C-alpha cells in the first residue's frame, strides 16, 4: 500500500512538474487538477500505511525500549555524575559527558517520533520539552567545563539531572496510562 502511495505521489509530482514547464505563464488545468487528485490519493495511502506501520508492535516496542533504556541510562549517569561532581576536575567534566551521555542522547533523539505515533503529539511534546532542556544544560556543562567555570558545571549538572528525571517521569506516566 505504501509503495503504491509513493508511486502515485511521484507520478503526480513528475507529471505535474512537466505540465508546469510547458509554458512560462499558463497551465493546462484540465490535466493538472486530476493529477493533484492522484497525488492526494497517494498521500492518503502513505499515511494509512505509516499509521499501521507505526502501530506494528515489533517496531514500536523496539523503539519504545530504546527510548526507555536511553532515558534511564541518562538519569543513572547523571545521578552518578552529580554524586561525585566534587571529585571531577572541572576541565575533565566535558570528557565525562561525551563519554557517558552522548550515545544515549543520540539514540533517544533518533527514536523520539515513536512517542507521537504510540501515544500522541501531547505526549511527544511533554517528554521532548524536558529532554531538550536537559540536553541543552548538558551542552552548557560542556562549555563551562571547557572554560573552567566550576560553579556553573555543578549547577547545570543538577539542572540537567532534574530535566531528565522529568522526561523519564513523563514517559512513565504515558506508559502507565496506556497500561491502565
Amino acid at each position, binding site marked *: 500500500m505504501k509503495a503504491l502511495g*509513493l508511486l502515485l*505521489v511521484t507520478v*503526480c*509530482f*513528475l507529471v*505535474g*512538474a*512537466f*505540465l*508546469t*514547464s*510547458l*509554458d*512560462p*505563464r*499558463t*497551465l493546462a*488545468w484540465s490535466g*493538472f487538477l486530476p493529477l*493533484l487528485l492522484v*497525488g*492526494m490519493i*497517494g*498521500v492518503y495511502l*502513505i*499515511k494509512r500505511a505509516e499509521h499501521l506501520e507505526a502501530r506494528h508492535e515489533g517496531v514500536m516496542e523496539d523503539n519504545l525500549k530504546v527510548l526507555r533504556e536511553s532515558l534511564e541510562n541518562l538519569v543513572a549517569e547523571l545521578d552518578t555524575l552529580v554524586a561525585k561532581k566534587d571529585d571531577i576536575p572541572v*576541565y575533565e567534566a566535558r570528557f565525562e559527558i561525551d563519554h557517558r551521555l552522548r550515545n544515549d542522547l*543520540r539514540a533517544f533523539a533518533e527514536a523520539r517520533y515513536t512517542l507521537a505515533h504510540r501515544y500522541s*503529539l*501531547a505526549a*511527544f*511534546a*511533554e517528554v*521532548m*520539552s*524536558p529532554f*531538550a*532542556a536537559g*540536553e*541543552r*544544560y*548538558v*551542552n*552548557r*556543562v*560542556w*562549555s*563551562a*567545563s*571547557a*572554560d*573552567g*567555570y*566550576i*560553579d*556553573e558545571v555543578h549547577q*547545570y549538572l543538577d*539542572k540537567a539531572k*532534574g*530535566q531528565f528525571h522529568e522526561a523519564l517521569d513523563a514517559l512513565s506516566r504515558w506508559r502507565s496510562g496506556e497500561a491502565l
Partner: protein
Amino acid sequence: MTAHTQVIRRGPYPELTWTAVLVGYFLGAIIAVSIAYAALKLGFSIEGSELAAILGFGILRGILNRSSIIENNVVQTIASAVNGASSGLMFSVPALFILGYTNFNPLLIVFGAIAGAFLGIAFIIPLRKQMIDYERLTYPGGVAVATILKSPGAGVKKAKLLVGAALASGAIHFVSKYVGVEYYDLGGLLGMPEYTNGIWYLSLLTVGVGFIAGRGGVAFIIGGFVCYWFLAPLLAGTELLPVVDGKVVTDPEALRVDLFRPVGIGMLIGGALTGIAMAFPLIINAIKSMQNAARVESAASRDEMPIKLLYGAIIGCAVLLCFIAIASAQEVSIWRGIAMGLLGTFWVWVAGVILSECIGRTNWSPLSGMTLIAVTLLIILTSGLDDESAVIAAVTVGAAACVAMSQATDLMLDLKTGYLVGATPRMQQFGQFIGAWLGPIIVMALILVLHKAYGLGSAELPAPQGQALASMISGILGGDVPTEKYLAGAGLGAILSATSGGLGITVGLGFYLPFAIVLTYALGTLSRELVDRFKGKEFSENTGIPVAAGLIVGEALVGVGFAVTYIVQGV
C-alpha cells in the same frame, strides 16, 4: 591545554554582558557595512554569524582576556542581528532609486525596518521549541558556528581540522575570486547538452554545508536534478522547450527564471502552508508548554522570554507597520494602510516559517523570492493608486517584511548554535532585540551616502538585487505575474509536504536556486553518506563536522575580506 591556562573560575558564567553588547555592536556595524556594500556592488549577501564568531573569539579571548563560550555566542548573536538589515534592505530599497521613485521618506523606511525586525524576532521565538527542540532541524550554519565557539575546549586535533579546512577553503575561494572564475562548465567539457546544466559552483563552503546537512538535504538535490536532468531533457526530446524570436531556448538560466523558479516559489509557499497545518498541533503544544512553564515559574521557564511580552511585541509592531503603510504615501488611505500592515504581518509569519525551515534543512533561504511575493501582494493591494505611490508604499512595507524575515532566520540559526553550546535562549533573544534596531539605521545611511556619491544602479554601484526587484516590479505593474505557475507549484508543494514534513519546501528550493549550487552541494551530501557508511557516524561528528565547519568559515571570511577591499578601493 597547558596547565598554566587551566584556571578554575568561580561565580556566574558570563553570558549577556555589557562587554558582549559593545563588542557585538562594533562587529555588527563593521560586518553590516562590508556586506551591504558588497551586496550593492556584486549582488551577494552573506550571513555574518561565522565571521562574528571568529572575530568575537579574537577580541574576547585575545584582547580582553575573557573566556566564555556563551558570551562569545551572544556577541555573534548581536553582531549578526545588526547585520540582519543588510540583506533585508539591500534587496528592496535600491529598487526605488533604480525605478526613479525617490520621493520616499527614508526615516519611515528605517522605522518600518526596525518594527519589522522586532516583529520577525517576536514571531519566530515561539517556534524555537518546535523547530529546534522537537524537530531538531540541522541548521548547518549554526553547527559551523557552534564548532568555532567550542574549539577552545574541543582539543587540538579538532582545532587543527577546523583551521586547516578553513585555510584550504579560503585559499581556493581567494584564487577563484581573484581570477574571476567561480563556476566550471564540466557538462560542456563532457559534451552534455546545454540545458542539462552541468556547471559547477566552485565553492568548498557549499560542500561543507551539504556535509553537515547530510540526508536532510537530499530532497533539495532531487528538486534540482528533476529540473535539469529530467524536465529539461524531456522538454527537449518532445520539442517543447520555449521558443523566443524563432530560437529554441536552451540556456539553463533562462529556463530556471522562466519555467522552474516560479513553480519553485509556489512549492515553497504551498509546502510551508501545508507544513504549518500539519505541525499546528505541535506548534500549539510548544506554545502551551511555554505558557505552562511561565505559570509555574520553573527553571526552564526562566530560560525563555515571557510569552506575553512576545504577544505584546507582535501586536505593537503590527500596529506600527499599519501606521507606516498609511504614512508611506499621501494617497494611501487608512483602510488600505491597515490592510497592507496586516498583510505584511501575516506574510512575515508565513515566510518566517518557510525561511527557517529552508535554512534549517539546507542552509539556504529564498529571501528574495519571499520578498518578491510580499511586494507583489502589496502592490495588488495598492491597485488604483498611481505607480509611484503604489511602489513606494509596497516597498516601504515590503522592506520591513524583508528585514523581519532576515531577522527570523538569523535568530533561528543563532538559537541552534546556542542549543549546541548550552546558551540560555532568553539571553540570545534579548541579544537579538538589542542588535536588531541598529542595522537599519547603519544600512539606510550607507545607501543614502553611496547613492549621493555614485548613484545606485550606476556602473559603479549596479545593485544587482535591487535591479532584479525593480524589473520584477515593472513586470507586476505591467500585469506580468506568473500567477498560474505559483498556484500549480503550491499544489505540488502541498502534496509533497503532506507526504513528508518539509519535503515540498526543500524540493521547491531545488527548483528555485541555480543548479550549479545543487551540484556542488550534492558532493557534500554524498561525502557524508560515504563517511557515515564506511567510517561511522562518530567519525563524521568528530572529524567530518569540524572539517565541514572549517570549509564554511574559510570561504565566508574571504568573502567578507573581498567586501572590505571593495570598500577601501571605493574610499
